[in-house]
Every structure is written in C-alpha cells, then in structure tokens.
C-alpha cells in the first residue's frame, strides 16, 4: 500500500477524532482504523511507524501502537 496514501488517510482520521479530547482521541482513531482498514493497510501503517513515523499525527502513532498490540494478542490467541 502506498505509504503517502496511508499517511494522509490516517492523519485525516486523527484530525476528526482530535476533537474528542484527551484520552478518547487515540481510542477513536484506533477504533476507526480497526473497523474500516483491511489488515494489509494496518500492516502498512505499522511499517510507517517503524520507519520513524515521519509526518504521522501523534494520535495516529498512539493508535497504531494500540492496534498492533491488539493484533498481536489476537494472533497469539489464534
């Protein structure tokens, strides 16, 4: 998946959920990506984060960490 597309899309999601306030914003970003992004898109996001996360909104980076943790937990459970 094109990194710049994922970057832009993730930041747009963060722009929306930023208004949710502290504590809720990153959760909102994570929940939205969990609900609507196909797994390879999430993997692409993790790669962006692993590459330094340049240009990614801090909320996206926080959400990506939570998503990755949940993905790992699900993979472990499976």
């Amino acid at each position, binding site marked *: 998946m094109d990194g710049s*597309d994922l970057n*832009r899309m993730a930041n747009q999601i963060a722009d*929306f959920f930023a208004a949710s306030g502290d504590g809720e914003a990153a959760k909102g970003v994570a929940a939205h990506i969990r609900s*609507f992004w*196909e797994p390879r898109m999430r993997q692409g996001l993790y790669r962006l984060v692993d590459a330094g996360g340049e240009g990614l909104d801090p909320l996206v980076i926080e959400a990506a960490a939570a998503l990755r943790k949940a993905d790992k937990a699900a993979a472990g459970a499976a």
Partner: protein
Amino acid sequence: MGLIHETDFGTPGRDGEPVSLEIDGITVTVPQGTSVMRAAMEAGVSVPKLCATDSLEAFGSCRLCLVEIDGRKGTPASCTTPVAPGMKVSTHTKRLADLRRGVMELYISDHPLDCLTCAANGDCELQDMAGAVGLREVRYGYGGANHFDAPKDESNPYFTFDPAKCILCSRCVRACDEVQGTFALTVDGRGFGSQISPGGFDGFLDSECVSCGACVQACPTATLTEKSVIEMGQPERSVLTTCAYCGVGCSFKAEMQGNEVVRMVPYKGGVANEGHSCVKGRFAWGYAVHRDRVLNPMIRERITDPWREVSWDEAIAYTAGRFRVIQEKYGRGAIGGITSSRCTNEEVYVVQKMIRAAFGNNNVDTCARVCHSPTGYGLKQTFGTSAGTQDFRSVAKSEVIMVIGANPTDGHPVFASRMKKRLRQGARLIVVDPRRIDLVNAPHMPKALHLPVRPGGNVALINAIAHVVVTEGLVNEAFVRERCEDDSFARWAAFIAEPRNAPEALEDSTGVPAAQVREAARLYATGGDAAIYYGLGVTEHSQGSTMVMGLANLAMATGNIGREGVGVNPLRGQNNVQGSCDMGSFPHELPGYRHVSDDAARGLFEKVWGVKIEPEPGLRIPNMMSAALDGSFRAIFIQGEDLAQSEPNTKNVYDALQAMDCVVVQDLFLNETSGLAHVFLPGTSFLEKDGTFTNAERRINRVRPVMPSKTGLDEWQVACRLATALGYPMSYPNASAIMDEIAALTPTFSGVSFDKLDRLGSVQWPCNDAAPEGTPIMHMDHFVRGKGHFVVTEFVPTPERATRMYPLILTTGRILTQYNVGAQTRRTDNVVWHPEDVLEIHPHDAEERGIASGDRVMLASRMGSTTLHALITDRMPQGVVYTTFHHPITEINFVTTELSDWATNCPEYKVTAVQVTRTNLQVDAEAAE
C-alpha cells in the same frame, strides 16, 4: 396480460371530512372538497369530460361534464363543483345529452377526421367522448376556418406537437405548471387564434420544456404523441416495473408490442412518482436495446489481444481458472469485486455473497463508495441507521426546505417537482450551493435564501448555522431532553457555541455573509417543520461524513426529526444506491449494515451459507487500486461500473487496472474499463431484470422483466455459476428465492417478499413483524440506536486549495438529460440537449482569461488536464468553475485529485484547484501521458 388501464377520476382526491350525496340515485360518501365528477366516478358513474384529469386541478373549460343538481339553476360543470351534504345529482338526462352533443359538434368541426390513420386511434379521449355522447353528425360542416393545416412541431426527439389536433383543453399547459412546475407552455393568442405555445413559439426543442412528458401524458388527443407510438402503433400489453436511472425510483408501465417496448408511461399507483416522470425515465430507455449492447461473453489473454466470443461455460471456467491461480499464488485476499447500484438487490446480494463465500474475503465494495458512503457512515453514527428518514410525500408537509449540495431539478427531477409544488404553496426555501441552481429562481415560488457556500466550506457553514441555533436559544430543549443523549449533546453544544464557530468568525471559510447564515439558521429553527435534502455536494468532500453528521446534529437540536415534513434526506444518485448498500456491498458490513467483526451476525450468515466468513474488513475501491499498484491485489470482478471513467485520479486507476492479472467486467456495453479487462460478461438491462430496487426513501419496488434476457442468463445466475466454478456451489430457483434468503438474514427486510411487493406495490424498510407494511417515516418515537447521538464536527479545511498556479476551484456534477458516465443516456436522443461536457465559468473569471462562451479551454490541475468548451454564466460564483462527467472524451477525472473523505474514502470530486486557459488543443488525455 393486456394493457393496464388506470382509472381517471377527473379531479384530484381530497382529505376532508366525509360528505354523503346521491348521484343518479346512488348514495356515495367522499371527503369534503371532492368534486361531483370524482364522487360520480367513486360511485361508478362516468361523466363525459375532456379538460379534466385527476392529476390536475379542475379547469372547467370543456363544458362536457355538465350535470344537473336538484335545487340549483343551470347545468354546472361537475369538475369544478364540490360535493355538498344531501346533494342530488343527475349526470345523464336528455338535456345534458343535447348539450354535450352540441359541445362535441363544435370540437369536431375543427378536428381532422383521420381517426383510422391517427396515431392515437384507440387511445383518444376525444374519440371516446364522441362515442360516449352519441355524436352522429356535425351540422357546422368542415368548410369554415380551421386549423387542419397548422404545421407540426417535430423538434423534440421524443414527441410531436400537432396543433391541428389540439382542442385547447389546456391540460398540457396545466400539467407543465402544476405537475412539473416548469411553466414552459402557455395558450398564446385569443379566441379562434389561440394556440398552445412552448416558450413563445420557440418550438419545443428550443423552449424551456424539460421533456418530462407530463404534457404528453395529459393530452387527451393525438396532439402530443410519442414518436415511438406514431412509428409503431398502439401497445398491446403493459408490465409494471421501476426506472433504472436516479434514486427516485419511479414506477412505470412498460407498454409493449410483443417483446418490443412502445413507450414507458409513468404509473399513477407508483408511490414514489405518482404518475410523473422525467426525460430520462420517460423517454431515454432506448439504450437497453441499443446496437452497442454486447450479448455474448468475451475473453482475452492480454488486454492487447482482440476479444474472442465464447460460450458462457467457457467464460465462467476461464474466469474461475484465472482467479484460482491468482489466489493460489498471491493469497485469498488478492482478488475482490465491486457491486453495482444499477443492479437489483438480488443481483447485488448474490455478488457480495460470491465474494465473501467463494472468493473467501471481504474485498467487496460498491459504486456508493464514490457518492453516498458518507451518508451511510454519518447517519449510522448519529441516528443508528444508514438511510434517509422520510418518504417523498413528506415534503408536502414541510414549512421550510433546506437543499444542500443537491440540484434536484437536474438530478432528481420527479422529486423536485413535488418539492416545487410545496414551495409554490408557500414553504420557504434555503439553498446551500456554490452555484445558483435552478431552484433558486424557479417560477411562481418565493425567492430562495441562497447561501453560495465556498467549495470545501460545508462543515464551517453547518457549524455556523448550529452556532446560531445554540447561542440564540433556538434549541428544541424538550426534544433533545427526551430523544437524545445528554452527554453528547452537552459536549456538542459547548463546542458549537465557541466564538470560533460563529458565522462572523467563519465567513472566510464559508464565503457566505454572516447575516445570511444567521437568517438561514433562524428560519430553519423557527419556521415550522423543516426538512433537509442533500446530495453529493455534501458527501463528496474530505469532510463529507462530518458534514452528514453536522446535518443530523442540526436536525436533532431543532427537533426536526421523527414526523412528517421534517428529516434528513439524502437524494441518492443511482436507482439502487440505497439497496446496494443495504445488501452488504461495503467491505466492513454484511447485509443489513452489520459489521463483519460481529460474531453473532457473521454466525447467522455462516450457518446459512455454510462457509466461514472473514471477520476483518476488506478493501475499499481506492484501497484495491492502491493494493494493485503494490502487487498484492491482482484480480477484480466489476459489476456494472466504469471505474476508469467514474473514479477520480484516473491515471492512478488506469495504472492499477493495468497492473492486475485479471479484470472482469460485467456490463451492457464495452466501456473505458473494459478496455483494460480480460473477461467481458454481458449484463442485462433493467427491462430484462427480475428483482427489486430500493430508492432514496427506502422504498423497495419490484423490477419486472418486460422481455427475455438478451444474454441468455440473468446476472445473478452468472454470479452463481462463477461461485460454483470456484468451488462454492450457489444456486437459486429464481430471484424471489434470493429475496427470501435476504429476508431470512436481514432483520430490516424480514417481512419483505415478492408476494408482498406484488400485493402492496412497494414497502419501505424496515419491513418486519413490528412494521409489516413498512416504515414511511423513521425515528418516530425513538432513534434506531436508542437516543440520538451528537457528534462534534470540527471544521478541518481540505488541503486542496486555490493557489497562484491553480487559482480556481473546480466542482463537478450532473445535468438533467444525462446520467453519470453517460453509458445509458449517451445512447439515446438525449444527446441533443447535452452533446458534450462544458465548463461553466463566471464572466469575470472568463474576462480575466480572455475567454468567450464556446471557446475551447484547457482545464488543468496538479493531477492532469483536459480540454472542453467554455460556457460563461453568472450562475457560477467568481473563483469557481463547474463541469459534468457524462462524456468519456472529456476525461474530467484526469483532473480530479486523490483526496477523499476521512471516514469513507468517498472522493473529493467537489474541490479541485485548477487553472483555465484558452487553447486550440483538442482533448486527448494529456494527463495520461
């Protein structure tokens, strides 16, 4: 089955208190305000008439419907005489018969006696009335002055106007006024010199006539006649079906000779349109039998190879073979498919089932991605379900109508006629649109309050309107307290009341003077029952979903939800956009909008389908294109969508499709996308389909085949065969059985069946045990989600902005006579009105660039460029240009960008920074190079 003859009651029905009277000795009870003529028909007594028809208010001009009423002098016209309690009416007496014969003699003395060669022979009310009154002679003769040689107007491609046969009943004029609301016709001249005139003798083609067909429908003689009837003769049988153009979903009688359509006639019993039509549905059906139709499957190894016609068996086996090889090599998720909003619910359901069950993934999306996906998201978040709240009839009860980002007179013309009727009765209109759309200055309506919002400024505007509502104490506190969440309302109200959301603070973003915004807010909140109708000008933005939620917030805050006359209503673009979304076409949702991660919902489908379903969402269309470019998505099944013309950022789409190993297109015609395809599976037109469409008001209408499939298979049978070839046996005895499965698995459809639809005509979902005959108005007592949820709608400007290099903003849309990518309408005579896409530009912007109307101009963005002809018009605001996307040669989506809605990836078609310059270049895909 023969022709369907609908009863004409002569005058419209009324809703008043019951009144009993006696007509020819028969006692009948009708609502107060009903005419004697209609009451007579209710009693089974037919009164002769010519100028009366029940789609129009009584006119009282033909003097044929005279009756005698005990205790009253003279012979009043029954059409203009309202019933009264105890009234005793005689409709057939010697005196009346003599009068009627006299009237008919006068009519016939100036009417050609060519009945045997007349196109209306057998379908002529004048002929019928001559028989009904017993006309045996015309004592005046035919030698006097007459209109027999009056020249015909044959300029309209679909109907002729033959003034020699006109009886000046004015039904056409009144139909244009009362039903259509265009006021294009008039009676010009006086006395014997009177004649029907479109726009002051322009001829129909050059007049303001919009070719809706209302005048043709109303004409009682052969004066206004379909050219197809003149050419073919009278039809012999009718089939009730549903139009396949916009989301209004008009019911039509397909009137046939054998398996050939003679004409499509709007059906009075169709609740969505109540006997009205537009130029597309009424006349532009010829594409369905056009010579360009591809009727046999075709395959090719490479896209550079010529197509090879093959049997269905070979095409299915070939496709399945290529899909399987790709999945074995690249994984299950390497293929996917797209469903079409032009197809029936049953066809869409089967395709998404094929993808989830046979492909084994959730890589299914639909063309709603590019139009109303934000509606699905936004209304589900706030109200709990992804659909409009009202039926179309509701607009007749509205006091204030807010039209945002929609152009109903062009996009949804039959609904626009309902809306204009209400506006002529005095409802107030707010139009939010960068362009001065036709509704703003429609005839005989109060002037609209037009807010010319800057493209990209929608959310700023809706926040500013809501700010006025909250800060000026216009919130409907009782409604919010009873029906909505306390906490989300409090959070939203605090946000929206912040000074930064005031109209004055947001003027730069909205482009609308603050005073106008305040006026609109006050009118919407305090003007009585207020309804919102919106279109793609809301959704096709980077904040499309936010805007939908902003509209829902506003409606909830003012209590404008949950009853007639109010609501939040998406005007859906295609005939079955609502249905294709309902049927599980989105990659994250099963039919009925249940998320794929919902174990219980998935379990229901797994049990019936006998297969495991992926719990993760699949790829959306733009994600598929992106994945194709990285090599992880290799094949696609495209049902009835021309991606290469309709998707934004066309170059990217071309590159993606070319990167795939197998592209399968199922369509009526070869198109831009099939040029990049390896398999072409011929589709069926709406005239061949058996199934249902769901319109913008959630109304499920039957689509009935009027002729056999020209390809030998129904489209759902093709999907079944492909699924079976892929190792997932799938079959149904008929389309009805597919709907039965949908009903069994989808709570909102649980009461739907073909039998019920045939019995009731149509139903609006939810249709289940709680609402066995459907649900016209949603959220009446409570929201689907329980309490209404307010969402904070922070305005985030789109990154696409005017710059020094690209100083104008392009916005795209559609026009009355053409439809989306034009695959259908370009293959009809509708091209006489719109032979090419043109660029509308404000006079000042044109002058600055030395551009005159008709000049060829280059339209360039950071993505690419194209050329087209300019049209200078002050309906455009300065700084904004507009064009349509109906002609592939325009390649307008080479110019549009990659930007999309944050929540749904609905493309931002409505905001592209562009420059316009004069050019002598011909359009030729400059951007593709």
